[in-house]
């Protein structure tokens, strides 16, 4: 839609614009692009940055109670392939620039309101700045914050409950690229020297490098010493926060508002577990010298985020119960590795390397903690949520690739977005893990962090190369089918046994176009011994023979794959894939009668889903399990081999 909007704008204004005003026209387009990008979900097509921001150093004096700000900052920037013609940014509408120099010469300042929130600032050099030449821009600004939301429903600025909350575009700027707007992955270091009233509690998303309180003012220094992607914001929180130290490396401090007090001991006990587990998976500790963990008051609509040395989560997630709350707490902290340490360069086009992998690793965190007797079945139960979401609630998510060429294809509707980016992403990465093996997958993740952590950030190609590594071989087909493309395979499985116990398994793809489908088959013997066989489908059907020392009772997929692959026995109603319609199959459906995919939230569901809903029992596909679904099977019962 924003393509169309931009095109219309160009057509309307283009003919009237004489050459001398082309610069203003470009500015207006830039402004329009930023305006659109500020609307939830609209990013515009991915465009390479024109500017290479390298460092942002800020000295800010803030009175949190009044919003009075006096500030100066220095931006170091270079033009990537062309001279620096303009540098633009957003700050709070209540703040105005008092001076600006660029390369030591006064800069031309243009300020204009953008919506009710922002002062849209453009700085233009009065001297030539050739491409590749780093230039320093020194800016002073002051005023009183207005803190107005950009549009109805937007997160209110400057305050979360009774906590002061400041991020890019408020007391410090959100830097904009003349080519890529708000997006873009030029990474830069940051430094903030913040002066506050004496005694103010403060946390910021950086290494705390200094702190002095002379009884009148509190001066704290914060630093992000390694380049951090421009898409990651800088945060400052002030006010009614109670700190609790947590013994981790780096040392963590949990900040809670008064309403968060009941959760302190639990979060304090969960945090080392979550961090140490991720350190083990990632084979590295976090690079920051401290970690601020902020439990955002539930009165705030801000649900949480992560940035350098800071994790934030809304306390409303406690409503999931302790298991769910701990898992989401783990999720947000896992973002310190997948999101902050390694920020993908194609964030606008995919959430696989951020939310997908983090959701999978949050499941892993819970499984490590709960130590289920059968980890495959436990993971399969978690991935049942993906199956239900893609099949019943958001089938559209199955049709959207996990990496889209045009970022406008990223879903806008929040729950569809979650089904796509989080749940489908996690299920796909778990399928990839099954395909390459757990140790190869984890080695791949470590290689990804080795090679793609900032400043070596990479996109999906780099992620694929890291996962391929020396052992897994080419994953071109997997990525083409399941990440850059889509697949919704529907399979049928049948098998026959010979006198010598050898089994011949027939797998058919029922959809019209065969997909590339790596599978893990489970051949289970009469004595319950499970044997795993890796199989790759590329054709409409395959027939495979496996020798066996004892009779094989059932042949099925590892149920972890059912989030993405619909599978049924060749014997209709044979839920346990033993090739028979028997009492077990009827029992498995009978107790579920009356269930709906979303009617009840069961333990382990993050989406209000009923993980006990079994789609194989929903014979008519109407999203409710009834006696009518079961009746034809009862009539046919039993069908034995």
């Amino acid at each position, binding site marked *: 839609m924003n393509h169309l909007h931009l095109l219309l704008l160009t057509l309307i204004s283009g003919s009237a614009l004489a050459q001398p005003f082309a610069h203003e026209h470009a500015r207006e387009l830039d402004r329009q692009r930023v305006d659109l990008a500020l609307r939830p979900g609209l990013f515009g097509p991915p465009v390479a940055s024109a500017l290479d921001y390298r460092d942002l150093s800020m000295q800010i004096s803030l009175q949190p109670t009044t919003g009075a700000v006096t500030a100066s900052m220095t931006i170091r920037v270079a033009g990537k392939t062309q001279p620096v013609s303009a540098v633009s940014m957003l700050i709070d509408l209540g703040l105005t620039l008092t001076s600006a120099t660029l390369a030591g010469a006064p800069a031309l300042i243009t300020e204009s309101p953008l919506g009710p929130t922002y002062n849209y600032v453009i700085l233009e050099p009065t001297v030539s700045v050739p491409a590749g030449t780093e230039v320093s821009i020194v800016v002073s600004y002051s005023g009183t914050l207005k803190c107005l939301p950009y549009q109805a429903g937007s997160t209110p600025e400057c305050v979360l409950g009774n906590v002061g909350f400041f991020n890019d575009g408020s007391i410090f700027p959100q830097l904009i690229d003349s080519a890529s707007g708000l997006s873009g992955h030029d990474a830069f270091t940051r430094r903030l020297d913040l002066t506050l009233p004496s005694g103010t509690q403060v946390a910021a998303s950086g290494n705390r490098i200094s702190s002095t309180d002379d009884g009148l003012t509190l001066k704290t220094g914060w630093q992000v010493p390694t380049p951090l992607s421009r898409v990651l914001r800088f945060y400052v929180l002030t006010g009614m926060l109670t700190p609790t130290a947590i013994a981790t490396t780096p040392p963590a401090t949990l900040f809670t508002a008064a309403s968060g007090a009941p959760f302190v001991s639990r979060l304090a006990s969960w945090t080392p577990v979550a961090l140490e587990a991720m350190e083990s998976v990632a084979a590295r500790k976090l690079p920051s010298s401290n970690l601020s963990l902020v439990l955002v008051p539930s009165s705030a609509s801000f649900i949480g985020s992560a940035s350098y040395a800071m994790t934030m989560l809304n306390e409303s997630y406690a409503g999931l119960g302790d298991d769910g709350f701990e898992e989401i707490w783990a999720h947000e902290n896992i973002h310190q590795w997948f999101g902050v340490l390694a920020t993908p360069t194609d964030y606008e086009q995919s959430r696989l390397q951020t939310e997908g992998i983090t959701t999978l690793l949050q499941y892993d965190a819970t499984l490590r903690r709960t130590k289920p007797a059968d980890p495959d079945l436990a993971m399969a139960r978690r991935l049942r949520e993906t199956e239900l979401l893609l099949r019943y609630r958001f089938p559209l998510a199955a049709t959207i690739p996990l990496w889209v060429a045009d970022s406008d294809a990223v879903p806008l509707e929040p729950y569809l977005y979650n089904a796509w980016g989080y749940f489908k992403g996690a299920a796909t990465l778990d399928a990839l893990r099954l395909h390459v093996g757990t140790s190869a997958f984890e080695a791949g993740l470590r290689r990804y962090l080795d090679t793609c952590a900032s400043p070596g950030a990479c996109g999906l190609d780099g992620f694929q190369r890291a996962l391929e590594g020396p052992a897994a071989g080419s994953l071109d087909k997997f990525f083409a089918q399941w990440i850059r493309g889509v697949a919704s395979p529907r399979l049928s499985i049948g098998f026959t046994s010979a006198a010598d116990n050898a089994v011949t398994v027939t797998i058919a793809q029922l959809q019209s176009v065969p997909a590339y489908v790596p599978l893990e088959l489970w051949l289970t013997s009469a004595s319950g011994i499970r044997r795993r066989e890796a199989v790759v489908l590329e054709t409409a059907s395959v027939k495979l023979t496996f020798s066996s020392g004892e009779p094989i009772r059932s042949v099925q997929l590892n149920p972890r794959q059912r989030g993405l692959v619909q599978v049924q026995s060749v014997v209709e109603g044979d839920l346990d894939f033993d090739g028979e319609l*028997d*009492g*077990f199959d*009827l*029992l*498995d459906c*009978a*107790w*579920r*009668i*009356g*269930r709906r995919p979303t009617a009840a939230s069961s333990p382990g569901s993050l989406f209000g889903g009923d993980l*006990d809903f079994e789609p194989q029992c929903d014979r008519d596909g109407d999203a409710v399990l009834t*006696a009518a679904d*079961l009746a034809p099977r*009862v009539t046919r*019962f*039993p069908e*034995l081999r």
Partner: protein
Amino acid sequence: MRAARLLLLLLSACGVSPATTIETPTHEVVLGPPPGWTFEPAAGSGAAILLEPVLLEDTRAVFALRPGGLGPLHGVAFRLVFDPAAAELVGFQPSSDWASAPLVKVVEARPGTVVGVLSRHGPTGAVVAAELGRIELKLKGAQPVTLRLERTRAQADFGAKIDAVWRAGVLRR
């Protein structure tokens, strides 16, 4: 001879195997009907679902499926396997507690394999019952009939599996 026959019947009614308790003098000719069927239950202990004889006649045997030491049941599935040359299924009659269950089906899927399922539907609550129902077999000859319960499952509310040993036994005469 008549006394011996009476003793045989009496012992049979008491469940004691006449084959091991009656010592027929080798020089005496025994006439009369063949000795009655007796049932040797499979050994075991603990929570179980048992196949227990309630009627043993010349060509007819009726067994009750009885839970023992189990909690409420929402459903069961089982297979009763025997030599088809020795017996065949006549029918299954659910107990009064299970007669109203929406899913009751016990059939001889193939000679010598009786496949059964009894279940309630959905969250309708489990049942505490002394008996699930009765299985009637036609006995075809005099040879022992080994009865085995296989592929069994006892299920509580919400699909929870119940650990139970399913025990049948051997019919002899």
